[in-house]
């Protein structure tokens, strides 16, 4: 291996080979690996432990750093995801910069996958350790980035989700700026007639919530406001608003919660929609709330209008709440007008969970009729009736008298969604719903730090679910703010502006929005707080101007060369 004479006296490497109980030692010869390590350049101390992550293992690392004056530590054991932070802390406690630590995985990458070849596994472990030692030579001390963060958050959207997030945050002691584009708070929920499943009046939920938010000492509410600009990053957002009668206002916050909601789809051209006799479920809500349904004797509802469809202009998803809404309204119609005939034409009745299903059973017992239709043979709306072929009864077409036809349409993304997505560089999916960090395990976070989401802007949900998500987003923000500072890893990308040509290839590829382009100097720069060290920019840069700290070519190439050492015997001439 090539030595760098300049550095050799500063490089004193300690290698700790872990038995990991029998996880590693059971499948390869740890002592042989440790003995081999001691022959490598720069290694002044090499040993094995039963469990390096145990108290005694950690104590041994710290002792060795002090006694042997180690300037690098290499632990050959399990995956960095398990104990790297622990080993780095140990180094730090012994006075060694934690970034002068290198971990070699001889468990997942060796013993676990070569359980039946002890000799070969041992050789491979030796090779892996040699590579780790090679890199250790070129490690640089680094410092984590720390940035103080103030407890001030913006919530965009004043519907139930946004109101719940704001209230929760304010009660936790956080200052909140609530931004709403319309003159009223309460969003879509306040426009409804009643809430499933218990048929509560939305006013009873929303009005007290609005009261609490408007009178909360820590919440500032801006109504009739539009957002002109949002710049910055976690801990440091600057929002420019245009507020009616107040002009342009600047607000500085540490985090943003997106709660811009959704709107009902208008089924233009479908099923003879005319807004008078053929109306949407949402329009039915308005009528039930105000003028009623006149003297209609027969109401036919059609589910999945404009949804679960591959047709152009229609939506492919199931909008989750429309079946429960239809059943709710059917129940209300039957309760108000016992002689009215209500039929629901559906593909699947999505009354999920306990309470919604109970609502379905009640509707059936009250005489609401349900007919299945096939999407390939949909119902037809005629002048006084709806024609439907429901195979579960017969192959003939049924003619259902219909004074009012109610079309259940999906909730679609709000018009604000693409605007906010653009302003904040956060992702949306094909339906313009916001794309969360992980659909299963992090449904309320964005991949970008400091931004969160809740409510129907994520995906259609009930007002209770919106409230739950709003509170959940508040908890996620609370976790971020609780420490009073943001700590981010030092292993981030950095741009050498002397060689950067400003092609912005890195900016386009960055999934975290961590790179910006400096117009005046024509170079790109990386925001170390947002950078997650994924390395995509480094790979994309045609001039090697972007490098990932901790993974520079000068650090990786020695590793590659070390890996090839074992092939040396196979090739007669090999210029390394």
């Amino acid at each position, binding site marked *: 291996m090539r030595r760098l004479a300049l550095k050799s006296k500063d490089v004193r490497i300690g290698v700790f080979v872990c038995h990991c109980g029998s996880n590693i030692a059971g499948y390869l010869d740890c002592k042989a690996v440790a003995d081999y390590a001691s022959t490598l350049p720069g290694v002044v101390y090499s040993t094995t432990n039963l469990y390096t992550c145990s108290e005694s293992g950690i104590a041994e690392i710290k002792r060795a750093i002090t006694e042997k004056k180690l300037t690098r530590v290499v632990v050959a054991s399990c995956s960095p995801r398990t104990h790297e932070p622990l080993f780095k802390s140990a180094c730090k406690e012994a006075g060694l910069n934690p970034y002068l630590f290198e971990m070699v995985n001889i468990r997942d990458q060796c013993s676990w996958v070569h359980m039946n070849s002890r000799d070969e596994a041992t050789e491979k472990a030796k090779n892996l350790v040699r590579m780790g030692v090679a890199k250790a030579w070129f490690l640089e001390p680094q410092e984590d980035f720390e940035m103080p963060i103030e*407890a001030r958050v913006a919530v965009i959207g004043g519907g139930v989700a946004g109101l719940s997030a704001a209230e929760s945050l304010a009660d*936790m*002691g956080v200052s909140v700026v609530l931004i709403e584009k319309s003159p009223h708070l309460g969003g879509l929920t306040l426009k409804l007639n009643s809430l499933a499943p218990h048929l509560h009046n939305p006013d009873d939920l929303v009005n007290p919530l609005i009261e609490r938010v408007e009178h909360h000492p820590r919440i500032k509410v801006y109504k009739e406001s539009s957002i002109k600009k949002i710049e910055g990053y976690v801990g440091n957002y600057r929002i420019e608003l245009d507020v009616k009668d107040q002009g342009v206002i600047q607000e500085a916050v540490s985090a943003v919660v997106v709660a811009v909601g959704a709107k009902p789809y208008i089924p233009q051209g479908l099923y003879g929609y005319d807004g008078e006799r053929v109306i949407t479920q949402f329009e039915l809500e308005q009528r039930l709330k105000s003028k009623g349904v006149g003297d209609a004797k027969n109401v036919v509802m059609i589910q999945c209008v404009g949804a679960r469809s591959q047709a152009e202009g229609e939506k492919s998803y199931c909008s989750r709440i429309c079946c429960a809404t239809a059943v709710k309204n059917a129940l209300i119609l039957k309760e108000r007008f016992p002689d009215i005939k209500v039929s629901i034409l559906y593909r699947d009745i999505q009354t999920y969970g306990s309470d919604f299903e109970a609502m379905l059973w009640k509707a059936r017992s009250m005489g609401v009729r349900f007919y299945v239709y096939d999407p390939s043979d949909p119902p037809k709306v005629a002048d006084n009736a709806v024609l439907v072929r429901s195979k579960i009864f017969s192959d003939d077409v049924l003619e259902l008298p219909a004074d009012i036809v109610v079309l259940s349409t999906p909730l679609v993304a709000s018009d604000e969604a693409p605007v906010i997505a653009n302003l904040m560089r956060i992702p949306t999916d094909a339906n313009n719903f916001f794309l969360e960090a992980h659909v*299963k395990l992090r449904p309320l976070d964005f991949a970008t730090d400091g931004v969160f989401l809740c409510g129907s802007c994520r995906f259609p949900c009930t007002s209770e679910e919106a409230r739950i998500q709003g509170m959940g987003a508040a*908890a*996620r923000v*609370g*976790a971020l703010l609780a420490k009073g500072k943001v700590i981010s890893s030092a292993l981030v990308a950095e741009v050498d502006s002397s060689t950067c040509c400003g092609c912005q290839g890195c900016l386009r590829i960055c999934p975290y929005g961590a790179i910006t382009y400096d117009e005046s100097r024509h170079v790109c720069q990386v925001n170390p707080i947002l950078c997650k060290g994924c390395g995509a920019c480094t790979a994309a840069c045609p001039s090697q101007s972007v490098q990932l700290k901790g993974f520079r070519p000068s650090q990786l190439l020695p590793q590659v060369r070390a890996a090839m050492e074992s092939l040396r015997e196979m090739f007669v001439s090999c210029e390394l």
Partner: protein
Amino acid sequence: MIRDKEHHVLVIGGGIAGIQVSLDLAEMGFFVHMVEKLPSIGGKMAQLDKTFPTNDCAI
């Protein structure tokens, strides 16, 4: 926020809900006592092979 006194909360159940609520509370500065009747945490999710719709492994 939660700086003056240390607040203690008990969480019963070590499945995904229990784990998440404990982590969120702990991150917010609360001290969480987690009680689980089985010998280890993980709940039903630990018994699943993969989860829908991404087919990620459940661990």
